[in-house]
């Protein structure tokens, strides 16, 4: 029986882009179903209202939302729909997904991240597992991302440098902010090795894309130059040019239909007019971000999968991961430096490409010896002015701040200092208290059950986050920063999410096999961050891209 397409891909972000581009280039007919709109470079501006104050790139919460469960102090779980709480848990829902809006800190995992259980042993209450593949399996694809997506950086040897098949990045580092001299000096004085942070931002034009324009607004903003390595700019545009790829925006897939053999036959979706449609294909790939991927598979029960696709052993949606860690800030007051120094620190545009990996692994008796740590990244406070002004909207007495007092506070927060922030990334251990299910009551505007997400964390995550934050604070102090503060909590960052369909050798403990195909579905792959059994101590995007290129090669072999 003929099919409409060779391959149907649900989603179009970092986990989908490599599949789409590689298979379209290989001559396969590829249909992409993307829930959001198709925005191009000419639609992206440095507009805080669009990026961050209104739901421009994400659904309105009245239309589509989540139900989030958090644990209270007495141990009970409290659930609340996000339309009530206002806690928006969406990321970019547009063609190219949230990769359009990333900051582009790009790190590889390290070889030990692929065998965390074997290297560091079990931790009570955590479902740590080794990956079914090794770093060596992934390395060629990490390298491929450097050229195909475009990563700028410079390799400096250090004790935790992961093995590479090429000597350095294909693009030199992006321009750097003058504050990096202060960071480097402080780290040197402390005996630490500050390292240039690789970025998925082009430092010179390539592949029909412009280089960075250094506007100084990157994270949370769509890129108007095409320099940022979003799946859209780096991969999808080229895929469409092959003539083999069709991108259907405003297409919300709500169910994958399967036959008596468990094979996927059709994707059912609502089109831009909210009309139900269906499309058939020989092979399906789901990559619509971890939470929505689990939700779609849970909603897609069939004759051989009565509890949802790949859920015959109740593994689907489990072991969801975020990124643990914390963040902090220190202020550098212009009044305490000369005019030239102040002017240098006020520079807007270049990146603070500095991070520390000195504690990726560390040995500390308080942690019982050899322990998995993480990375620390430095960055300037985001320049978004409305967000900055909102930070003084309430006074110390918890009253609204207005009038001349507000104006003095605004003047101070905008003009007295440059603020350097740090962010800590460490493992969010997989536990039984972090998972996706279908909410029994709340529905989206099309009538489908929304994802209910339990947001439990392991206390070990906070201990490691505190340890690493303590190291970062030493750097800020050494730099002479004032009013230093930080926080570490178990509150998850919604933009760093993985897991839910972990891959592994055993169908009883994993959803996907090592090829990221559902163990018991012959023609369905999952290629977003859902596959990750553990997340490593870095942002996930480079690994998601690399793994999708790996799976693209596997699919190419079978078609």
């Amino acid at each position, binding site marked *: 029986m003929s099919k409409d397409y060779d391959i149907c891909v649900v989603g179009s972000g970092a986990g989908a882009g490599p599949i789409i581009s590689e298979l379209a280039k290989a001559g396969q007919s590829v249909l992409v179903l993307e829930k*959001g*709109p*198709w*925005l191009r470079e000419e*639609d992206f*501006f*440095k*507009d*805080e*209202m*669009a*990026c*961050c*104050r*209104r*739901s*421009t*790139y*994400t659904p309105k*919460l009245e239309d589509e939302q989540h139900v989030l469960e958090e644990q209270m102090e007495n141990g009970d779980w409290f659930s609340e729909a996000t*339309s*009530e*709480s*206002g*806690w*928006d848990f*969406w990321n970019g829902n*547009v063609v190219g997904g949230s990769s359009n809006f990333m900051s582009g800190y790009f790190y590889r995992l390290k070889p030990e991240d692929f065998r965390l259980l074997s290297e560091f042993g079990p931790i009570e209450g955590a479902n740590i597992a080794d990956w079914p593949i090794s770093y060596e399996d992934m390395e060629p694809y990490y390298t491929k991302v450097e050229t195909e997506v475009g990563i700028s950086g410079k390799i400096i040897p250090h004790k935790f440098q992961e093995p590479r098949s090429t000597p350095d990045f294909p693009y030199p580092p992006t321009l750097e902010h003058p504050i990096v001299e202060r960071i480097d000096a402080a780290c040197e004085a402390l005996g630490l090795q500050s390292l240039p942070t690789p970025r998925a931002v082009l430092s010179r034009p390539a592949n029909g894309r412009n280089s960075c*324009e250094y*506007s*100084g*607004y990157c*994270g*949370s*903003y769509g890129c*108007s130059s095409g320099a940022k390595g979003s799946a859209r700019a780096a991969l999808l545009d080229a895929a469409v040019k092959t003539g083999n790829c069709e991108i259907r*925006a*405003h297409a919300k897939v709500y169910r994958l239909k399967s036959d008596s053999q468990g094979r996927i036959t059709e994707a059912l979706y609502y089109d*831009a*007019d909210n009309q139900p449609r269906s499309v058939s294909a020989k092979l399906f790939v789901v990559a619509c971000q971890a939470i929505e991927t689990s939700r779609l598979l849970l909603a897609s029960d069939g004759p051989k999968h009565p509890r949802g696709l790949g859920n015959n052993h109740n593994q689907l949606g489990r072991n969801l991961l975020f990124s643990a860690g914390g963040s902090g800030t220190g202020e550098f007051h212009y009044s305490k430096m000369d005019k030239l120094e102040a002017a240098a620190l006020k520079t*807007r545009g270049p990146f603070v490409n500095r991070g520390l990996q000195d504690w990726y692994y560390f040995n500390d008796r308080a942690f019982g010896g050899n322990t998995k740590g993480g990375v620390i990244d430095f960055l300037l406070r*985001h*320049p978004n*002015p*409305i*967000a900055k*002004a*909102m930070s003084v*909207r309430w006074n110390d007495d918890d*009253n*609204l701040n*207005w*009038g*001349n007092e*507000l*104006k003095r506070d*605004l*003047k101070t927060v*905008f*003009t007295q200092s440059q603020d350097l922030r740090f962010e800590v990334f460490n493992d969010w251990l997989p536990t039984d208290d972090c998972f996706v299910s279908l909410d029994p009551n709340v529905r989206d505007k099309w009538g489908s059950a929304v994802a209910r997400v339990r947001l439990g964390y392991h206390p070990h995550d906070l201990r490691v986050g505190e340890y690493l934050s303590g190291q970062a604070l030493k750097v800020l102090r050494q730099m002479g920063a004032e009013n230093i503060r930080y926080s570490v909590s178990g509150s998850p960052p919604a933009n760093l999410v993985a897991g839910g369909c972990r891959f592994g050798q055993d169908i009883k403990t994993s959803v996907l096999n090592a090829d990221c195909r559902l163990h018991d579905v012959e023609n369905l792959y999952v290629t977003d961050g859902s596959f990750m059994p553990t997340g490593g101590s870095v942002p996930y995007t480079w690994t998601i891209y690399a793994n999708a290129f790996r799976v693209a090669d596997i699919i190419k072999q079978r078609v």
Partner: protein
Amino acid sequence: MKAHRPHINRRQFLQLVAATGASLPLGQLCAKQSGPETRSETSPYENLKDPWLSLAEVQQHLLPTEKNAPGARDIHALVFLRNMLNAPDSDAEERGFILKGVDWLNDLSVKNHQQIFRKLSPEKKEKVLRRIETSRAGSRWLSLMMSYLIEALLSDPVYGGNRDGKGWAWLEHQPGFPSPTADKLYYKLGQPPRRRTKS
């Protein structure tokens, strides 16, 4: 980076309406224009009527003009507020809540000081607003007014506030580029193609 904008609690809204007596049907309050106000030669503050007149007074009290610092009128904060409340994506309930809050404000002003809000001295205006802040609904109303005011001060001038970039200039803020154009306002981006109609 997305702003935390919880919607108003319906109970709070109903409490407020009950307290003030709904004098305007919600549909009338929620009539929407097709796009933002464009710049005209006449001042947008001329010939104002309530509720806009009172809202402008509240904004000016919350962000007063100083010799070297712009106030709400200088940045056209009311134009921004009106544009946002009339935007296609604006929440009808929130819009009604803000506009109805004017009745509440004036009722309280008359009750406590025998004059409507805009006729009061700055000291009495401050007292009334601080009194309003002590109730949950009142605090919510003022919080929304402050949010719109700060957005008016620092959003791109294309949305009607931050007139001539006065907010940015005062706070020595360097905006990014490219800046949004009138045909690419946030609520005009990514709209699905128009629904097909039968001929």
